[in-house]
């Protein structure tokens, strides 16, 4: 790679090489290690890891909330929590799991993997990427802080107005909900724009759209859903905020307001949101299953197009959440039909995963087990979902535990099992060591059993008439036995989660004890480009941007076909992987300002709730962040720049004729 040493970038003002210190503070961070390198990073991989870690912490919080709920419901006349606290617990459990666990966990995978899978050095806007992370994280902390500031949200994650107006929800909880959704929504919106531009614009040479891995495709569809769904919920929570804080009349029924307004706005967002939660996991298992079946994904175009179809049809089914709200027989019939239709592309996916495994050389690793768990459990959840689409049946099921069972089968049994599968699969790529497989299998089986114990009985409870969201029940209701089973199941899931956490610790210790052996670029015999680079992935991702010639390009670099069409190895893995030793690759410089802006937003929100004067320092912090951002060049002028326009791309197989990157040490300092 002929690197051309260029003049240091001249500042547009004509000053050059002057360290920029807006307002005299927060100079360009230089550290490459320590906490400072994390909070200022713009590296998509570090951002992805932070998304994942923070989401896992929120997962534990949401899980503890769930355990308290199950403890309360373990026996009739439960006295563990008061009814008011119970409302807060089920609301925050849902808000946490949806907005602070599954979405960001999917964002973690998307951030980490999209640039690697399409052969890019980073996302399109690295600083905006950092902004997304911090804005989301501080928004999440803002929502969670409500527990200590006068009460958490208590109107359900769907927050049906006018039930969530000041009259019926007088604590500040729903304000925290509304403002928190706005803040985390800003983060998700910025992230979705960033990732769409990345996938559309930064693909490696030869990486056409229909050579992209299925995960990349599903993440792309998810980002489009976010892009168009988030503004709708933003409108809804803005209206709610204006009602609650400024006395507007959007949900003031006494003035003639329409209570269906909120339901429509919420579910126009809410149903695409369901696919925002599940599609990334669909993408993950579409990567895992082919690798551990040693077969290409069956029906790649069908997988991609069914994902796109889900993305489109997801916009036409929202009112099936409102069958019992009196929207009229024509609407009900139309949304019934569209809901039945959307099961078709999902069914296509299920069949294609099974066809991928069919006749494959299966390896039952933990990642594969979780992926198969998704296929099985999501199918159960999907089938109960189809039963909701039959509107007469749904009017019986609405607001019962049958619904709770259904969406936990698709979100836990679907989304979460898929995310676990991805964690086991890409853990060596992100951290350089494998998770212990034996503990992993314990984790899988205990989680799977606990999950079915918890949510399976809820089908029965629901059909027996147990309402959702009730704080307790009577012995005479006949709900005691299955509730107890469900609570035992919840404890089992908790044990499974503890095993997972122990697994990380244990695997790290034994890796360290064995002098940190190199796990290799390609521990699973993978198929996509991220397995071409060392583990953990080097900061610059690729020494040379690969030129892509086929779908599953990396696999084809390793394997050819014999005359019977069977895969035969043509090159050793070491010969086709990169060494990660390129030097002097220019990378975007770290920055404090995304963090500064993100700190300011919750301060404004606190101000809106408690005292408008607090908004002023918050706004000043945001302005400071914006100001610093604008006057800080994205590239540090002190760091030498390499020119990438003429960057050569390697030949297929990365063989011969290539000069390795000339180390052109970047003078730092």
């Amino acid at each position: 790679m002929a690197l051309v040493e260029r003049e240091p970038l001249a500042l547009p003002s004509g000053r050059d090489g002057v360290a920029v210190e807006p307002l005299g503070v927060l100079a360009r961070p230089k550290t490459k290690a320590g906490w400072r390198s994390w909070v200022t990073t713009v590296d998509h991989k570090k951002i992805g890891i932070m998304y994942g870690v923070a989401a896992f912490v929120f997962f534990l919080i949401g899980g503890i909330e769930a355990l308290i709920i199950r403890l309360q419901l373990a026996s009739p006349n439960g006295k563990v929590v008061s009814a008011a606290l119970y409302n807060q617990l089920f609301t925050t459990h849902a808000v946490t799991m949806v907005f602070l666990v599954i979405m960001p966990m999917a964002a973690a995978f998307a951030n980490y993997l999209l640039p690697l899978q399409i052969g890019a050095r980073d996302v399109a806007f690295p600083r905006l990427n950092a902004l997304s992370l911090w804005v989301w994280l501080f928004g999440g902390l803002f929502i969670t802080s409500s527990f200590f500031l006068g009460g958490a949200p208590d109107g359900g994650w769907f927050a049906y107005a006018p039930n969530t107006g000041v009259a019926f929800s007088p604590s500040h909880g729903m304000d925290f909900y509304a403002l928190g959704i706005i803040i985390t929504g800003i983060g998700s919106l910025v992230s979705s724009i960033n990732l769409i531009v990345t996938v559309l614009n930064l693909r490696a040479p030869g990486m056409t759209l229909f050579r992209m891995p299925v995960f990349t495709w599903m993440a792309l569809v998810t980002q489009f859903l976010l892009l168009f769904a988030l503004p709708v919920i933003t409108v809804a929570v803005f209206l709610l905020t204006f009602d609650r804080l400024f006395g507007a009349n959007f949900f003031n029924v006494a003035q003639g307001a329409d209570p269906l307004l909120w339901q429509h706005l919420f579910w126009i967002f809410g149903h695409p949101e369901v696919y925002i939660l599940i599609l990334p996991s669909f993408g993950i298992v579409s990567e895992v299953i082919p690798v551990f079946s040693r077969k290409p994904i069956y029906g790649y175009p069908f997988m991609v197009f069914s994902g796109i179809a889900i993305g489109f049809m997801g916009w036409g089914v929202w009112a099936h959440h409102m069958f019992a709200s009196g929207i009229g027989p024509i609407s009900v019939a139309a949304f019934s039909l569209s809901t039945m239709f959307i099961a078709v592309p999902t069914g296509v996916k299920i069949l294609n995963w099974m066809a991928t495994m069919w006749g494959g050389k299966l390896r039952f690793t933990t990642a594969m087990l979780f992926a198969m768990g998704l296929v099985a459990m999501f199918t159960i959840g999907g089938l109960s979902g189809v039963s909701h689409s039959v509107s007469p049946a749904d009017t019986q099921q609405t607001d019962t535990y049958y619904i709770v069972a259904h969406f936990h089968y698709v979100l836990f049994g679907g989304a979460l099992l898929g995310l676990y599968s991805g964690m086991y699969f890409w853990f060596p790529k992100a951290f350089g060591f494998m998770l212990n497989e034996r503990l992993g299998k314990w984790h899988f089986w205990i989680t799977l059993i606990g999950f079915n114990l918890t949510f399976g009985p809820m089908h029965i409870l629901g059909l027996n008439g147990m309402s959702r969201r009730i704080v307790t029940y009577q012995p005479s209701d006949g709900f005691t036995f299955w509730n107890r089973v469900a609570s035992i199941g919840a404890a089992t899931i908790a044990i499974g989660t503890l095993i997972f956490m122990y697994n990380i610790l244990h695997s790290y210790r034994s890796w360290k004890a064995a002098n940190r052996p190199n796990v290799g670029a390609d521990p699973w015999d993978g198929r996509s480009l991220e397995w071409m680079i060392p583990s953990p992935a080097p900061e610059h991702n690729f020494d040379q941007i690969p030129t892509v010639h086929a779908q599953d390009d990396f696999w084809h670099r390793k394997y050819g076909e014999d005359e019977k069409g069977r895969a035969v190895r043509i090159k050793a893995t070491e010969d086709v992987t990169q060494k990660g030793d390129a030097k002097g690759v220019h990378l975007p410089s770290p920055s404090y300002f995304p963090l500064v802006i993100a700190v300011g937003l919750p301060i404004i929100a606190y101000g809106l709730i408690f005292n408008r004067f607090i908004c002023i320092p918050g706004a000043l912090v945001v302005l400071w962040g914006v100001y610093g951002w604008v006057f800080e060049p994205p590239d540090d002028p002190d760091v030498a720049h390499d020119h990438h326009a003429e960057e050569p791309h390697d030949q297929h197989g990365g063989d011969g004729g290539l000069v390795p990157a000339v180390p052109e040490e970047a003078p730092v300092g």
Partner: protein
Amino acid sequence: MAEVLTADAPAAAGHDDHGGHDPHHTNTGISNEKLAMWLFLGSECLLFGGLISTYLLYRYKLRSFPGFENVQINRLGAHIYDIPFTSVSSFVLLMSSLTMVLAHSALTRNDHQRTRIWLMTTALLGATFISGQVYEFTAFYREGLGYTTNIFSSAFFTLTGFHGVHVTVGIIMLLSMFVQSARGRLAAENAERLEIVGLYWHFVDVVWVVIFAVVYLIP
């Protein structure tokens, strides 16, 4: 967000290097910044879609509105709107799209003097529109139609207010473009940066066309 997106661009002057890719060699042929703005505007369509739907739902749903007892219920808007006034301010805003195009065209011809003139004109036209909105809001308030008066007023002020905030953000973007140009930082090669601001500005105008038709003109 919008200001953040453009905020990225000026600092990159001359050497735009996001993730090691030259913006002129993207897969789509559209630069990252411009594609991002298009996506953002796509998202904004649904934001205004939600607000316009809310307004449409509520404009005929009034049951009572203190202070307007003598007005036929579904004619409140027609009673209170000053159509000629708003038509003029709408015309002003639409003309600002023209001056925006002229500013961009002047920049591509390397005519910095005219770029600045047209930029300032665009910003002033936008500010005129905002002043008209402030006047209109004040007049409504004096007539007794405050933000909290009824569901109609809440929906009206929220919809037009959101649009006003968008115009204001656009004016800030235009003024920062003006300052950059005055300080010699807006070269003809960076004309795309101005084009991206223009995309936003035209979008805000187009949204106003819809709002003006839906809110003011449809009886």
